[in-house]
């Protein structure tokens, strides 16, 4: 259980339309949530930060999903609250990959001491719950979403570097790499023009899994109140803020929770499809 989902094979990314029914359901759900998250703000009927009614007003004609704990329109906040989920998770994944790719390529190609250092770091990281590590790093960097993004990138960097390293190592002994070296290509050029294109499909499949991880980690930290701060509209934060209204207006916490759930479920379904089911 090194990662929550199963390993993904390389041929997966060549298909755009998933093979299995569950994979197609996953893709459809993913597109739906991404669409809501990216374009939602434009359709928000009210200002997401304005108090319009009494706290936890149940759904009515004017406020289709009711009001939250400060009397703000839940629908508008839900429509505006997905962008940050995708943005920060995407940013964390990108950062983690930028670092992991560089370190992994160099470690795999040069087969130097960097490799054994990398292994030790991964071992230490695996001896620790990722969320606790994230909290620790966030403590060190001070509160706020910036340090959470950086921390979740740091947590994921070593495992990524290890995957890249393994893939690069496998390629670096192939004939075409030796030919490139013999032609006198520079190390940078060998890495970028020869090895990278040949491991890109493995990596493309892995990025999806890392993104799920980022969504889970960052949403959880936001839920714990240690990431994005009020009055930001964010699905994770909204679930946390509106827990008190479970009896009066449950939709204030249920709708953002459901959207986050659909997002993670969709990526899981897609990942299973790419890895060829769980056989």
């Amino acid at each position, binding site marked *: *259980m090194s990662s929550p989902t199963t390993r993904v094979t390389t041929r997966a990314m060549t298909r755009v339309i998933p093979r299995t029914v569950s994979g197609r359901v996953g893709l459809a759900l993913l597109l739906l949530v991404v669409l809501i998250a990216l374009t939602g703000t434009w359709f928000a009927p009210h200002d997401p930060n304005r108090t319009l009614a009494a706290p936890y007003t149940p759904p009515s004609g004017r406020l289709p999903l009711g009001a939250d704990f400060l009397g703000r329109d839940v629908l508008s906040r839900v429509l505006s609250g997905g962008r940050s989920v995708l943005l920060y998770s995407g940013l964390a994944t990108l950062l983690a990959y930028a670092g992991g790719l560089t370190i992994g390529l160099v470690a795999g190609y040069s087969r130097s001491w960097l490799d054994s250092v990398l292994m030790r770091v991964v071992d*230490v990281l695996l001896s620790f719950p*990722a969320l606790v590590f994230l*909290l*620790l790093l966030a*403590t060190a960097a001070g509160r706020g979403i910036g340090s959470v993004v950086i921390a979740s990138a740091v947590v994921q960097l070593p495992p990524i570097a290890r995957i890249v390293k393994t893939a690069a190592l496998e390629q670096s002994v192939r004939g075409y790499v030796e030919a490139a070296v013999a032609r006198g290509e520079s190390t940078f050029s060998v890495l970028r023009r020869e090895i990278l294109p040949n491991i890109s499909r493995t990596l493309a499949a892995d990025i999806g899994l890392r993104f799920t991880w980022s969504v889970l980690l960052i949403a959880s930290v936001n839920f714990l109140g240690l990431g994005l701060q009020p009055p930001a509209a964010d699905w994770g934060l909204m679930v946390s803020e509106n827990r008190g209204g479970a009896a009066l207006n*449950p939709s204030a916490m249920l709708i953002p929770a459901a959207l986050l759930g659909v997002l*993670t479920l969709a990526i899981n379904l897609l990942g*299973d499809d790419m890895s060829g089911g769980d056989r």
Partner: protein
Amino acid sequence: MSRRPPGSPSRTAHGPLTRSGFLSSHPLALMAIRRVAAGVVTLLILSVLVFAAASVLPGDAASAILGKQATGQALADLRHRMGLDQSIPVQYWHWLTGLLHGDLGDSAAGFASGGQVSVWSQVSGKLGDSAVLALCAFVPIAVVSVLLGVYSALRAGRWQDHLISVTTLVPSALPEFVLGTVLLAVFFGWLDVLPPVSVVAPGSSPLATPSVLVLPVLTLVGVTAGPAARMVRAGMLEALGADTVAVARLNGIAEGRVVRRYALRNAIAPSIQVFALVAQYLVGGLLIVEYLFGYPGIGKELVDAVSIHDNAEVQSVTMLLAAFYIATTIVADLAVMVAVPKLRTGAA
């Protein structure tokens, strides 16, 4: 009929005989010593990282507690009492040797309220409450995952298998707090049969009011049982595909006996690993679930300590959790060696 499955090596084949003395004849003890040593090294590296992370913050805890109006004298005084006037390596050394003696240091929150409160007195009761919750979640997770995993392996590819994998996929794909929120809305908001906040009176056991445990446990079981069952299923499938099972079947042994005697026994080792992973997962899971339901455990305590920047407590609690994490791995590996005689001779 032999008690041992055919094909497993005899107990007399010991490891390399070149090594002399007690350890060579007790590969399990040798392995245990090695693993514990490696665990201690990992913990030491971690302690440096953890201490560095908690100390790198700009400004120090003393000025954070006293605020901007503090006089130089009061500040120096408090810094002295908190040990902040010493150099970082000295502070680290104090903290580390304290940990080894079971002294987790003094909580910054305690200094803030004027007194001196040890971290241990803050967290000891909460550790107990968390242990109760973790155990209450662990037992059903173990039972459910073994039952579902073995059953779906025996029905692999049929509708029962698919039904189990689909129904467990949905809850296990959700973040803990999402599943917990849904359960909260159903059992408190809609049915109104369970409390939304797990209030446990100080000094009393959560077992005195079992209803506060139900929602946290349900959440943890829902998220974990699916992946755990999947792994048990994989282990059981592998055991069912082994030569020993095929030979036993060809010998005309009844299928029920084949499953119990040959397949299940070989599925024990991978299952132990699954249980260890579940126990480790629970450390992170407790953080979220305790915060969600306001359960007064170590996870909520850590989140609170992080949010008020009580570094002394964050450091020590983090090390406690890491020690538990590493100990679980070691215990599981040794348990696997005890359960699988083959590994006892080969690995050491």
